[in-house]
């Protein structure tokens, strides 16, 4: 059946909280073309990469020694008849080493090294109790392992907090003009960005951002527009002195066949190390690209229907209408799970 019945419903008004200020056309200082594939690694990433590679090679070397010369090593430590255990430890070292060199899931592999170190230290302590143990040598080896552990911990923490870069796009049933204007009116951002509590424009290019998250986390920073091409593109970055280095851009491109506008957003965050850094990491979640995707989805909903659909507050045969396991994720109380 052709949809011959009229499919016309009253178009909801877009409730822009404020009218975008008219801007002189900018564009002189777009820092760099942010291209996901060829973007230069941040200093963070370069450091973490070097450390991981070194530790990976070390793991493989040590593992090979344990597998090839278990008898010699055991003899030297005075713990004969423990060759099989040594070989197993060697296999573990090699697996971690290969994992580290593969470059994927680096933080996880580094943390698994820390865990391995802890096991080694425990085994060494137990070995020193054996009858023929050479306790001097075991103590020396323990000290060396402890030093390596410290290095592993530092590298793991750094790798866990590397800069986050992500890019997502969505198609919106609205003109590039409408989409651009809604976004350009920066006060609108908190309406669809889940962690952004407030954006206050301060003059033509500067704005003040307040971001909040789980555990009472609250961060503020100043940002500036680095590019503003009406109906085409917006780019911004945080100003020096902000707790998170943040760069972002959004492009509006007319979709082929008069099918609305493709909105492409790209953001990068480089949180600092230490406690604050790890708090910020929880804010970004395990899946930052999913966060960005949900932000864009809410942007689309606002433009197309004028509201964001929710089930918050509906009845159910349990204490809460929404499900902790599934719906809470979208509300920001829980991380995205992998299916």
């Amino acid at each position, binding site marked *: 059946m052709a949809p011959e019945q009229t499919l016309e*419903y009253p178009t909801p008004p877009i409730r822009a909280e404020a009218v975008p200020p008219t801007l002189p056309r900018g564009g002189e200082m777009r820092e760099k073309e942010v291209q996901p594939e060829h973007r230069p690694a941040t200093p963070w990433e370069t450091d973490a990469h070097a450390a991981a590679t070194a530790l990976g090679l070390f793991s493989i070397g040590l593992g090979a020694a344990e597998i090839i010369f278990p008898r010699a090593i055991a003899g030297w430590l005075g713990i004969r008849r423990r060759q099989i255990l040594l070989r197993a430890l060697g296999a573990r070292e090699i697996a971690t080493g290969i994992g580290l060199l593969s470059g994927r899931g680096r933080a996880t592999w580094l943390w698994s090294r820390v865990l391995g170190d802890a096991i080694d230290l425990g085994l060494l302590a137990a070995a020193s109790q054996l009858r023929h143990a050479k306790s001097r040598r075991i103590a020396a080896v323990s000290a060396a392992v402890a030093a390596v552990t410290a290095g592993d911990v530092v590298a793991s923490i750094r790798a866990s907090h590397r800069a986050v870069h992500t890019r997502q796009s969505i198609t919106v049933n609205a003109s590039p003009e409408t989409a651009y204007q809604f976004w350009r009116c920066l006060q609108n951002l908190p309406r669809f960005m889940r962690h952004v509590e407030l954006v206050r424009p301060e003059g033509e290019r500067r704005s003040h951002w307040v971001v909040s998250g789980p555990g009472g986390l609250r961060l503020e920073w100043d940002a500036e527009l680095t590019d503003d091409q009406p109906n085409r593109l917006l780019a911004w970055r945080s100003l020096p002195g902000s707790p998170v280095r943040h760069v972002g851009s959004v492009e509006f491109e007319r979709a082929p066949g008069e099918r609305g506008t493709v909105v492409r957003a790209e953001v990068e965050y480089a949180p600092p190390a230490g406690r604050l850094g790890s708090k910020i990491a929880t804010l970004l979640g395990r899946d930052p690209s999913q966060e960005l995707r949900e932000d864009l*989805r809410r942007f689309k909903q606002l433009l197309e229907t004028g509201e964001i659909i929710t089930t918050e507050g509906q009845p159910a045969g349990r204490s809460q*209408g929404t499900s902790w396991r*599934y719906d809470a994720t979208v509300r920001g109380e829980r991380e995205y799970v992998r299916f």
Partner: protein
Amino acid sequence: MKAACWYGKQKIDVVNVAEPRLLNRHDAIVRITTTAICGSDLHLYNGVVPTMERGDILGHEFMGEVIHVGSDVRRVKSGDRVVVAFPISCGQCFSCQHGAFSHCENSNPNAWIAEKMLGHSPAGIFGYSHMTGGFAGGQAQYVRVPFADVGTMKVPETLEDEQVLFLSDIFPTGYMAAENCNIQNGDTVAVWGCGPVGQFAIRSAFMLGAERVIGIDSVPARLKMARDGRAETINFQESDVYDALMDMTGGRGPDSCIDAVGMEAHAPAMIGWYDRVKQLLMMETDRPFALRQAIMACRNGGTVSVPGVYAGWIDKFPAGAMMNKAITIKTGQTHAQRYMRPLLERIQSGQIDPSFVITHRLRLDDAPRGYDMFNHRDGCIKVVMKPWS
């Protein structure tokens, strides 16, 4: 208010819950006068649809009276008697504006879950797991209807609830299944499954010009209802379906085949156990026995239309038959809103009275019994419930 809630596999309870309120500006609250149990609800009942939670209110086939509307609702008002379409659709997105209401891009708050499982998300659906939004359903005394302007249709006072209730789902579903067959004069259409969806598919296929319709099932009462609708029938427990179909169609095979069974198909012993074991071990989420058979039996160049619900993965899919025979496959959750008005006209003009499928009329309090009977099938074809008696 009272509501039928899901508490696990084959565990339904009618409990007291809070009354729904308006949550979005396009919402309406409907006081439900009649509601039904759908074959799709049986997939939830039997625990084969992921992302259900204890306490979810079930039900996506319901109608009633509008008692509150949100500030942006324009076409319906308090006091209107309406039928509600089962997909929740915004009316503004690309899909909705092309009549693909069950693909609405703005009505599923949990679209991300569905995207992970299916690649793209369908629309939100009432009472149908959190993957389709976790919306409270309509086997209850009241329900909140988001995007009420799009999802509700006023019905004339001259028609009884039971005559218009199925415009919410199964009548449009059977009709769209037949429409997807692209029926030409003289065509033969075979319909796997003579449940409520199959029954409407049979009658719709005749309305759209099929010359012969063949219904396939094993439940005598359902086969009889199919014959009452002018179909010929095959009992798949008594004869080999492929052989019977070839015999009936002179070796050519049906021009179109409709799979109105879905992911919990019954199958003869060996192959049936194969799929059951795989489903148990989560190596396959759906049991596609009817679908395989439909593809094998369909004539060269014919169409296989799949209204039966599948949720995940299947095994032993006859790709060779599909390719070599140049089969067209058409599927989908029904774009119910698109069919409600034209099908209402068919009811008004007396071409069909959808209440023929009803075999059981219960109170909402009897929902657990209703689910059990419908699941056992013998003699029970469609259950409707009255929430206020």
